[in-house]
């Protein structure tokens, strides 16, 4: 509809709608927007790929033959493969409990679930170091009695990643399931379905696109997390270094080839970000009605 009104303005520029700005103002505002977005978003994005290929395609690809790089990629995949399903399970359980029932303190519970978003990633890493580090009672007990190391080891990296991606799926599902109410579930139960059958055949299909949306965002953040993981991993090369950390390690070496490696690995993550954005946009366009209506940031 808005498209139509714009066309009408082109066709009859003399008649200006009372609620539109004049053409020069409009064009100036659009130009300013394009300039800001280009400067702050597009140029940095393009520069990553340009610098990855600064010495040609060969050196860029050689990055991925470095054992450290391969180990970082595998660790990143492993961490995401654990953190995302954990938060998926939590997100579904939390959304079910909060959206399908009425009990005191629901709003407060939602606020608590959102809490990790407002905690600095560095602090997120720190809280685990303080709780489970080798110098703490729990950390020492685990290390001495069981030989389990959490901080400065892979389990810590997983924990920190779970923390920073904690709310993604829950906050996607809660408003949607609240909107949907319990009508469909009541219908299924009245037809004789058990609780699990109701969830499996009715609730899950109703929220599947929102679930995918949440998983997508959760995964992007899980693979890209830097601050929390930097604090907790100890940055042991080839052991606890994830892709973002490996980028930092490469970047701090002042060899030209290491710079290319840093940007090559950055390009892979930037590519992942672009794919994430593309699928996200597609989901929003195709299944707008099946995603939560309230979506502010993060």
């Amino acid at each position, binding site marked *: 509809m808005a*498209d139509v009104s714009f066309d009408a303005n082109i066709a009859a520029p003399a008649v200006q709608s*009372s*609620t539109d700005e004049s053409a020069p103002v409009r064009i100036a505002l659009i130009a300013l927007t*394009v300039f*800001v977005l280009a400067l*702050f*978003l597009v*140029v*940095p*994005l393009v*520069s*990553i790929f340009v*610098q990855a290929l600064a010495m040609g395609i060969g050196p860029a690809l050689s990055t991925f033959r470095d054992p450290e790089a391969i180990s970082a990629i595998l660790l990143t995949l492993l961490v995401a493969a654990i953190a995302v399903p954990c938060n998926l399970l*939590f997100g579904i*359980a*939390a959304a079910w*409990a909060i959206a*399908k*029932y*009425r009990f*005191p303190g629901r709003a407060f*519970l939602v*606020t*608590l679930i959102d*809490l*990790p978003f*407002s*905690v*600095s*990633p*560095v*602090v997120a890493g*720190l809280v*685990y*170091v*303080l709780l489970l580090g080798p*110098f703490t009672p729990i950390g020492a007990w685990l290390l001495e009695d069981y030989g389990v190391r959490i901080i400065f080891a892979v389990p810590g990296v997983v*924990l920190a990643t779970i923390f920073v991606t904690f709310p993604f799926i829950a906050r996607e599902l809660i408003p949607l399931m609240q909107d949907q109410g*319990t009508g469909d579930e009541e219908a299924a*139960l009245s037809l004789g379905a058990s*609780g699990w059958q*109701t969830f499996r055949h009715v609730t899950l299909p109703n929220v599947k696109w929102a679930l995918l949306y949440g998983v997508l965002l959760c995964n992007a953040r899980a693979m*890209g*997390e*830097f601050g929390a993981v*930097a*604090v907790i991993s100890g940055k042991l090369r080839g052991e606890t270094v994830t*892709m*973002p950390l490996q980028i*930092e390690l490469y*970047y701090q070496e002042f060899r030209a080839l290491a710079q290319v490696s840093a*940007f090559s690995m*950055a390009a892979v*993550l930037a590519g992942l*970000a672009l794919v*994430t*954005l593309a699928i*996200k*946009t597609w989901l929003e366009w195709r299944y707008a009605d099946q995603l939560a209506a309230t979506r*502010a940031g993060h």
Partner: protein
Amino acid sequence: MARFRFRQPSIVPGFGLTFGFTVFYLSLIVLIPIAGLFIKTFELDWASFQRIVTGPRFLAALRLSFGASLLAALFNVVVGVLIAWVLVRYRFFARKLLDAIIDLPFALPTAVAGIALTSLYVPSGWIGQLFSPYGITIAYTPVGIWIALVFIGLPFVVRTVQPVLEDFNREVEEAAATLGAPRRTTILRVVAPPLIPAVLTGFSLAFARAVGEYGSVIFIAGNIPRQTEILPLLIVFRLEEREYAAAAAIAAVMLSVSFLILLTINLIQVWSDRRFGNG
């Protein structure tokens, strides 16, 4: 059957299981670790705590973190409202593409953003070289930090204002016009007020994110103590020096500020629902 009921009865099964798991997981991952941080802070006696939070290095980092975050969030408010307005009200080539790319800072890992911005703004970088002839350096100065914080906070205001603007009834503007209000008056007196809660929420989110930001800032900041050292970095240094209680104290200060911001956002929401109706 006259027992206390926590929740209203419902025929939908599974409350015990899902509620129990939710509270358990939330406590394990979030609440207990955060509580642990505050307990660790209490290991400090008052004098040491005071020494930490009044030390010149801490105060410089505090001023830098909050100052740069404030300036970045304010800039994001101006730019964010502009972008939201243009995306909602005007139709032009590549509008959908721009709309999609707004979320790039959410999707792009912060370390990637950090090295990309740094390499652009160093004196030999694409953008840095435009300024270096005039003796202006951006990277490794507070200006560089500000740029990184603008980058990561850009989507917040856009994404909070956009839906409000989309729902805005054009008839209200037309009504103002029929009542004789000039366009500028209509925008200031009719369009702007309902946007205020969304703008405040977006500002708070961008500010909170900027204060805690680490990955995108440390590359471009240069990390010179008392000049370009941000609070989260100070925590990392304390941690590397094994000054755990000191790290915890700084983190506790930051967390308290985060909680305050979170509270503010919720209050804005409550006020806005009451003042402008829900949705």
